[in-house]
């Protein structure tokens, strides 16, 4: 990856780098907290895939909307969700972004335009289509980005949505994080062609494949897809090829993955790779170290906040099944907090 002043400024580069590190530290902490029993169920780290969420979200505006999967902590943090309330949600604390009801698979922070991470593979793809349709109907200029995996790209709703999005020219960017695996099933056993981007072509919409471990390549692809979407040209499918972390999740009940394969992600790790290109472009080691220190501190505080937050009261389990009659519709009317995302700062 070649960094030029034209393509990207120093300030942005450091922000991207730091955000990738926040995500990395966040996920490492989550694994640690899971192993200590503080996270129930499971947690799905996006370690090794940080370049995708960071590159993509840096190409969006803060008013743009994103939806992702259970492996979406990176998307949440890149779109500006405060690490504190995200971590508190992983620990199902009352202070979490979903009041601790959602947990690791269900982060949602409408203030930042994160309209949910989802536990049902691919189900959020048509939902993202509907969000994009709302933006189109309102001529709001918002773009909706939807992140999902290679496994999701086998589910019918992915195709149904491409058909509708292409037909209606929706401002939708479909971002497939092809990390090579759906739990234990390799893409060679799940996809009829090597490139998932091919599917888009069958629907008459653009499909591109990018190196998902190159944060700037992802950024470029999303910038141009978002621009096209905003100009009324319709959806784009971006397949980001990446490498999954050691295994599917913190809790895996199946047979362990072969240890050598499990470490393959390190070779492609987008973080040292981006660091090297920043150094090559003339940034100082000190600047990078400072970014890293800040990232580490941000996550340390998040963990502290989460661990010290209360669990929901058991008596409250009945609350919130239905919205009260006077609650505003959808996400409208709900107050925005300032996010600390990458969006629009550039």
């Amino acid at each position, binding site marked *: 990856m070649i960094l030029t002043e034209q393509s990207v400024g120093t300030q942005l580069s450091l922000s991207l780098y730091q955000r990738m590190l926040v995500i990395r530290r966040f996920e490492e902490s989550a694994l640690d907290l899971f192993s200590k029993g503080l996270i129930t169920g499971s947690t799905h780290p996006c370690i090794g895939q940080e370049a995708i969420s960071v590159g993509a979200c840096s190409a969006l505006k803060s008013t743009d909307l994103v939806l992702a999967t259970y492996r979406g902590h990176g998307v949440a943090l890149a779109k500006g969700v405060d690490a504190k309330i995200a971590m508190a949600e992983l620990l199902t604390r009352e202070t979490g972004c979903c009041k601790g009801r959602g947990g690791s698979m269900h982060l949602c922070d409408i203030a930042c335009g994160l*309209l949910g991470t989802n536990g049902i593979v691919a189900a959020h793809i*048509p939902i993202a289509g509907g969000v994009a349709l*709302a*933006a189109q109907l309102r001529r709001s200029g918002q773009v909706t980005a939807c992140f999902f995996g290679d496994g999701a790209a086998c589910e019918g709703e992915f195709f149904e*949505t491409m058909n*509708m999005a292409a037909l209606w020219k929706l401002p939708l960017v479909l971002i497939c994080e092809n990390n090579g695996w759906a739990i234990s099933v390799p893409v060679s056993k799940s996809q009829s062609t090597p490139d998932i981007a091919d599917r888009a072509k069958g629907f008459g919409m653009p499909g591109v494949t990018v190196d998902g471990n190159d944060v700037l390549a992802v950024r470029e692809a999303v910038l141009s897809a978002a621009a096209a979407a905003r100009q009324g040209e319709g959806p784009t499918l971006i397949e980001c090829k990446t490498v999954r972390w050691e295994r599917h999740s913190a809790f895996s009940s199946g047979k362990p993955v072969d240890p050598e394969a499990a470490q393959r992600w390190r070779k492609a790790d987008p973080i040292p790779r981006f660091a090297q290109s920043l150094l090559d472009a003339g940034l100082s080691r000190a600047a990078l170290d400072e970014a890293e220190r800040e990232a580490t501190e941000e996550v340390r505080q998040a963990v502290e906040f989460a661990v010290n937050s209360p669990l929901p009261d058991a008596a409250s389990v009945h609350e919130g*099944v239905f919205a009260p009659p006077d609650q505003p519709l959808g996400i409208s009317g709900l107050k925005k907090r300032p996010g600390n995302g990458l969006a629009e700062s550039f």
Partner: protein
Amino acid sequence: MMRKAINEAIGEHMRGNAETVLLGQDIGPYGGTFGVYGSLFEEFGPERVRDGPLCESSTVGFAIGLAMMGIRSIVELEFVDFAPLALDQIVNQAAKMHYFCGGQITLPMIVRTPIVSRIGMGPQHSQSLEAWFMHIPGLRVVIPSNAYDAKGLMNTALREPNPVIFLENAKLYSTQTEVPEEHYEIPFGKARTLREGSDATVVAISGTVPEALLAAQELWQDGVSVEVIDPRTLSPFDTEGIAASLRKTNRMLITHDAYQTCGVAAEISQRMMETAFDYLDAPIMRVTGLDVPVPSGPLHTAVVPDRARITAALRALLH
């Protein structure tokens, strides 16, 4: 006509709410599978009355996305038999999202779908699946039996911030009941007594209501006084209203078109046991659709409850 009543409620709402859209297939110039939409397409145009590709699951998914953004939509699923295709979106997304997002999102959306249990269109076009929806917390489940209720309940549904499943028995679309022109709302969770009586209560749902009323009429000629009550909404459910009737008559029969096993009748009966056990002079009876795939053709009439089966059961109940 129930068809017209629902149309009126939706039309009036759309006139006052410029963002509401209709999603589905055959809802445009065709006017909806059973014609409920009449000329809404002509009035509101293709942007708001959006005929789309045939994909039930994603259509409901799109409705959820719109609802998240505060745009209310109504999805027509052509038969409730096709609801299984969209059930993941309805059950795992729509029903739970408000809860698992800690209340950040509400989902103003309606899934309307006909129950076609009384036309003989065969095993894949004759089911009555309301029990499935009633089983799932987070859904409002509405099931009117006449035009008046349909309009008032639809008006209420159109103000709900929560997902509503609106189940319309196709056989009832053309039944005549008086429907006021003006706006009125019927609160969810209030049963309606369609006929007062003192000897037994019939709880009838959807397509069985006209049959139950005929049965009550028939027994009246024999000097037996049967109360007929329609829950109108299954979620919320008017347990107290139904129990009050039972406390008066001490005998109850529940009837619906759906399969018997794990149908709504069992739930209602159990709620009666829990609230009014001491008032029961006899076991609560059910007269329901048989536990068989509904065959095509005239044979289907052997499956759904009719006046004769209800009358015979009531006689046994009163015996």
